[in-house]
């Protein structure tokens, strides 16, 4: 038996996978990793990840091997180091597999000029799925672990590491994007041409009131010419909804399942991952695609 203990949980550390589907009609949000590009890359290094990825934001977690050994890989742009059992310190890099032995501690300090990072574990973390997914929705209390990770959480990984060979891939090109091509939202016609012009030509700032549910933007007020109150309908991640204060919110992975605000536009799938990595105060712009 191999086991690891969370020695420092970091901020907003949760278990995530590619999402929980087929339950949104029962009020269950899709959730899943905020930046799905990174866990897609980590699959190449740790193919047998069992869909149990650890997601962290800003301040990363520290994990220590209590018993046995584990093989892991970190994805994202972050500072980290390994405190070996014999007190020596080792440098380590994202997108390169890491072997950790009893007493070794991986310390992820923080993400650099980005928000989210991930750890993949060979053979997973010994978790059971919840509604066919390992993802965590902390607001709804749904998940293999239905809350953020805490200090002292312990995971047991019954299978032993398959090989100590170090595997690495070139650092993926996850360049920072601040201009987003968006498609018209279902309520585009709730906004006048002038307001749409403000949406396209305006600069919006990501505020610190942003989380896995949504990214709140600050910018020129986008007031609807019809109403900011629509009959609730199904919504998708990436939708940009505008409540009555005119300040848009980009809905992210832990979306409410139905919503009653008009949606001016929607991001494409990869841009949901891209925008999730922009820290507060980042300035962004939108381009509206008319033909799609």
């Amino acid at each position, binding site marked *: 038996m191999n086991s690891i203990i969370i020695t420092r949980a970091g901020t907003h550390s949760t278990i995530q996978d590619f*999402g929980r*589907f*087929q*339950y*949104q*009609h*029962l*009020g*269950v949000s*899709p959730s899943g990793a905020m930046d799905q590009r990174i866990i897609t890359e980590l699959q190449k290094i740790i193919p047998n990840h069992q869909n149990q990825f650890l997601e962290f934001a800003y301040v990363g977690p520290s994990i220590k091997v209590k018993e046995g050994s584990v093989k892991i890989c970190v994805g994202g742009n972050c500072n980290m180091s390994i405190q070996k059992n014999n007190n020596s310190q080792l440098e380590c890099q994202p997108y390169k597999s890491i072997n950790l032995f009893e007493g070794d501690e991986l310390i992820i300090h923080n993400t650099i000029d980005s928000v989210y990072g991930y750890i993949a574990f060979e053979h997973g973390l010994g978790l059971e799925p*919840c*509604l066919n997914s390992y993802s965590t929705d902390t607001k*709804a*209390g*749904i998940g293999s672990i239905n809350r953020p990770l805490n200090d002292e959480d312990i995971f047991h990984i019954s299978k032993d590491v398959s090989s100590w060979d170090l595997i690495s891939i070139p650092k993926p090109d996850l360049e920072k994007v601040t201009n987003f091509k968006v*498609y018209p*939202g*279902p309520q585009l016609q709730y906004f006048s041409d002038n307001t749409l012009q403000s949406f396209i030509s305006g600069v919006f700032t990501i505020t610190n009131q942003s989380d896995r549910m949504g990214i709140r933007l600050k910018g020129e007020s986008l007031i609807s010419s019809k109403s900011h109150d629509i*009959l*609730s*309908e*199904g*919504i*998708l991640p*990436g*939708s940009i909804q505008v409540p009555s204060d005119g300040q848009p919110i980009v809905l992210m992975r832990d979306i*409410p*399942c*139905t919503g009653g605000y008009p949606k001016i536009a*929607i*991001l*494409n*799938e990869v841009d949901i991952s891209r925008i999730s990595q922009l820290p507060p105060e980042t300035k962004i712009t939108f381009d509206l695609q008319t033909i*799609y």
Partner: protein
Amino acid sequence: MYFKGINSYGDRGLVLDFGNETSKSISQEVNETFLNISNLNLQSLNIIPSFNKIVVIFENSKIRDQNKDKISMKMKDTNSQTNKKVTKAWEIPACYNEDFALDIKIIQKLNQITKEEVINLHSSVRYYTYYIGFMPGFPYLGDVPSQLITPRLATPRVKIPARSIGIAKNHTCIYPKVSPGGWNIIGQIPFDIFDLQSSYPSLFLPGDEVKFYSVSLSEFEKIRKYNFSLNELIKEYSS
């Protein structure tokens, strides 16, 4: 037929549009269509019915476009539609005791009726489950008798107790667990309606009929102690 057509929702979603009105008959068509679309076994990630829309999401635009034709054909081919009903009729115990009825006075005052009238009116109607949304297992039920129609609270409550019964506009609901929310709370039911241990985690499904009956606090506490599973609740309280 209320169905108006199929529109795109971004690069990977579709919206089946049933107009801008809301009524039980529109919802019945939406919920029958939801079953028909579900039975197509499309490569969809989620199919989300609401009052007058069904949103379908796919992994990418290519799969979306391939599946759009299948949905269009199904919508045109009215003969092949199953009008098979797979809904349940529920009789749900409700305790309107003042400990639970946090906002009943707002409804009394607005509509100039007594507490007993609120209870009698609320428990007199066989409600239709429009859809499940807002939070896991949360049923939108309606319509409440016109004397109970009340707007949402001006300032939403930060913490509504689990299992609370609420009224907002012409709808009534049950909060499956503790949540912030703006509905006027008038009572509580004695069991949980969403269970993650079950492969069918929501007690109520779109199209179900729900009628409440008033129980005393002691009766409420008695039922509460049974800790019914969803399967036991189906046996005890539905037909």
